[in-house]
């Protein structure tokens, strides 16, 4: 589904990533882990189009999507969530998800301004669809609340609902468990599995080892900008280099 090939990224004199390659299989949950400063977020930002790599390519399916901006990647079915949730704070929960459906509709300025019939039908569909995704993530009761007023855990769920509304082929989550308590993390794990069951590929960057080992089908380990290991949770857990890199638990 997703393949990184020889990704290198330098910022001025600093090499954040060096020759990182890995692949993500369809309808699997893949985790990217590594100590702080390993380059996980940089890699993430490159894959999702916010940074451009200095060298290397990214493939989505068979297509070379290196250097594509986020809006283009969205139309190809790639979406992400953010570590510091980037919700549309002034808009309601429902409206946030409706923006997620932006690529599933096409009315332009003229059609919307003049309320042409095609636009009206589309609006109704968008609204219904958004309601479904709220349900999927279990936040239907918060429909009219301003996103900026949500408690953190619910905000995370909204981010996921919004991303899923795009009907992506692959969803990338940046530290989705950060800031969640253990009950919320369990709920998150269930939700991520549900997403996989629905046929979507999941990639997540995480620090929460329990969560990673619990739900991931495959794990990629980064350290100091290089790929250290790639394999099943079991293989990673038993890999001496990985253990050394972490120097202990978590």
């Amino acid at each position, binding site marked *: 589904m997703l393949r990184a090939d020889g990704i290198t990224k330098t*910022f*001025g004199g600093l090499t954040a990533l060096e020759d990182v390659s890995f692949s993500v299989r369809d309808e699997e949950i893949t985790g990217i882990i590594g100590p702080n400063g390993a380059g996980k*977020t940089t890699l993430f*930002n490159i894959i999702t189009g*916010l*940074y451009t790599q200095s060298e290397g390519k990214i493939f989505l399916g068979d297509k070379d999507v290196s250097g594509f901006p986020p809006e283009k990647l969205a139309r190809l079915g790639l979406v992400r969530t953010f570590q510091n949730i980037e919700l549309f704070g002034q808009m309601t929960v429902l409206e946030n998800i409706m923006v997620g459906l932006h690529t599933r509709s096409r009315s332009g300025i003229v059609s919307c301004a003049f309320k042409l019939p095609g636009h009206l039908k589309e609006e109704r569909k968008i609204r219904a669809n958004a309601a479904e995704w709220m349900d999927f993530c279990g936040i239907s009761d918060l429909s009219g609340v301003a996103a900026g007023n949500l408690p953190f855990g619910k905000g995370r769920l909204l981010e996921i609902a919004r991303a899923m509304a795009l009907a992506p082929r692959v969803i990338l989550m940046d530290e989705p468990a950060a800031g969640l308590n253990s009950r919320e993390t369990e709920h998150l794990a269930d939700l991520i599995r549900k997403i996989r069951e629905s046929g979507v590929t999941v990639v997540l960057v995480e620090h929460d080892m329990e969560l990673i080992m619990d739900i991931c089908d495959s794990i990629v380990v980064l350290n100091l900008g290089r790929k250290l290991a790639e394999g099943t949770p079991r293989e990673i857990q038993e890999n001496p280099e990985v253990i050394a890199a972490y120097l202990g638990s978590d």
Partner: protein
Amino acid sequence: MNFASQILQYLLSGLSTGAIYSLIGLGFAIIFNSTGIINFAQGEFVMLGGMLTYFFLSVVKVPFAAAMLLAVITSTATGVIFERLAIRPLKQPTHLNLVIITIGGSIFIRGLAMIVWGKDTHTIPTFYGSAPITLEGATILPQHLWIFGITFLVIIINKLFFFYSISGKAMRACAYNRNAASLVGIDVKRMVLFSFAISSSMGAIAGMIAAPLTMTSYDVGIMLGLKGFCAAIIGGMSGGIGTVLGGMILGVLESMGAGLISSGYKDAIAFIILLLILFVRPQGLFRKAETERV
């Protein structure tokens, strides 16, 4: 006057105007670097420098040096009051809100000036010496030399303050990283206040040394402020030598343009340059591009 003398004339007067723009630009940079705010009211402190000097000198009839000192003190006080009353209590400091409130402040100060002093233009006498000096066919007045000298002095003091004094270093720390600065015990709010105080006094000085040549009235602040901002953008908001060079470049280009092309479009030159820089090289001429961290 032959062509070479003409060019020299434009160059010299351009450098002189440029020095003024540099001072104003530094004022912008200082506040921006400590707070991230572009203080649209900066130009009004320049206006206050000139107008207050006129006021203390001609109305209150205080000796020249005292008038200047009082003018700087009053302008600085205005800057501090403005920061305290309008900026600090802001609940939602979004870009737009800050832009609007500083614009509101500038309008308010201008309105106040108009009520107190009316719409007339006023002059203040040149500083010591009034005989023109000729140089290769070009003329400069002693006032120009005063402008260069005082600007130079202010810039040096500025540099010394920011690099060698504790407060100066603290302010630079706030510019680099507010949170880290406050974590090491720097009173960020106080630094913000200082930066407004310093900027408004620099603006006032700029206004004061320019006024003998350009005259002063309640609305000179707008254009001067904007051009000072252009200088800061050209030089890259660094607050250092870049901003000074930015001001000089702007002054000279403006002077050349007005002399060689058309004087009516003189003001437009600054803004055309501004747009070009913003479009092509927004970090200014002297800085490397910044990468944004997500």
